[in-house]
């Protein structure tokens, strides 16, 4: 069992306030980077910070009620809460949905990472190829490939997000990948 689910299970059994706060801090230090990446990949960045705080609060408040036993279930539960909060936000401000970025803007982000970890010519070549794969097809396909390969959502999570079944998502992503590869070959 990994550390995250151990902490969550211990949290559920803990009655003292000080110990609960300590465990919650540890849990959130572990989940926050991925959670923030999910949020900033879903909503316009100017609105993401406020929604992010609401999501943190909702997860922290409900932590005792989580009933699963695995890390995978815990992540699915966290993403469900995050999605609900994002949807609540879109109901009032639909314009805050993240608009697709241009390949040039995305590349600027990649270049930003080079400040800490320089990009060798071989890696640069691979990154350019990956960006082409991710942006070559029609918008719906690009978004699916992005959610799966960049945000890291699995088929089940994307299926839940889009109200589709698992196999439909798996097939769609396969077809999109095929299309992208044929377009850039």
């Amino acid at each position, binding site marked *: 069992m990994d550390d995250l689910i151990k902490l969550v299970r211990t949290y559920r059994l803990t009655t003292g306030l000080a110990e609960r706060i300590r465990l919650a801090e540890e849990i959130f230090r572990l989940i926050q980077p991925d959670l923030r990446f999910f949020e*900033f990949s879903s909503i316009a960045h100017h609105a993401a910070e406020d929604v992010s705080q609401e999501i943190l609060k909702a997860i922290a408040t409900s932590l005792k009620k989580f009933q699963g036993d695995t890390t995978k279930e815990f992540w699915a539960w966290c993403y469900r809460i995050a999605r609900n909060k994002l949807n609540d936000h879109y109901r009032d401000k639909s314009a805050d949905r993240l608009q697709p970025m241009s390949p040039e803007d995305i590349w600027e982000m990649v270049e930003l990472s080079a400040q800490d970890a320089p990009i060798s010519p071989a890696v640069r070549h691979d990154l350019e190829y990956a960006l082409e794969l991710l942006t070559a097809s029609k918008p719906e396909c690009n978004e699916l490939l992005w959610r799966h390969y960049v945000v890291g959502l699995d088929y089940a999570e994307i299926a839940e997000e889009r109200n589709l079944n698992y196999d439909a998502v798996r097939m769609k992503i396969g077809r999109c990948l095929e299309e992208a590869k044929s377009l850039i070959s």
Partner: protein
Amino acid sequence: MAELSQRDQLALHEFSVRYRAALAKQHQTPEQSLDTVRDAVREQYEQEQDAKRDMTIEPSEPTPEREPDEPDQDR
């Protein structure tokens, strides 16, 4: 259906790692985040304590319903 070659997998993985790092650098986690978590845990804890207190307060003896006054026959 298209299969991902090892090269595709590595390229997409490297891309995801780099993009994630750039986004984290651009939008660093604010200090207040853990305060939000602590406040939410505290609030939840207080609600639980209130609920427990409400449950442990013994219900008071039900007061017997007062019989209606007999009409004063002499009046």
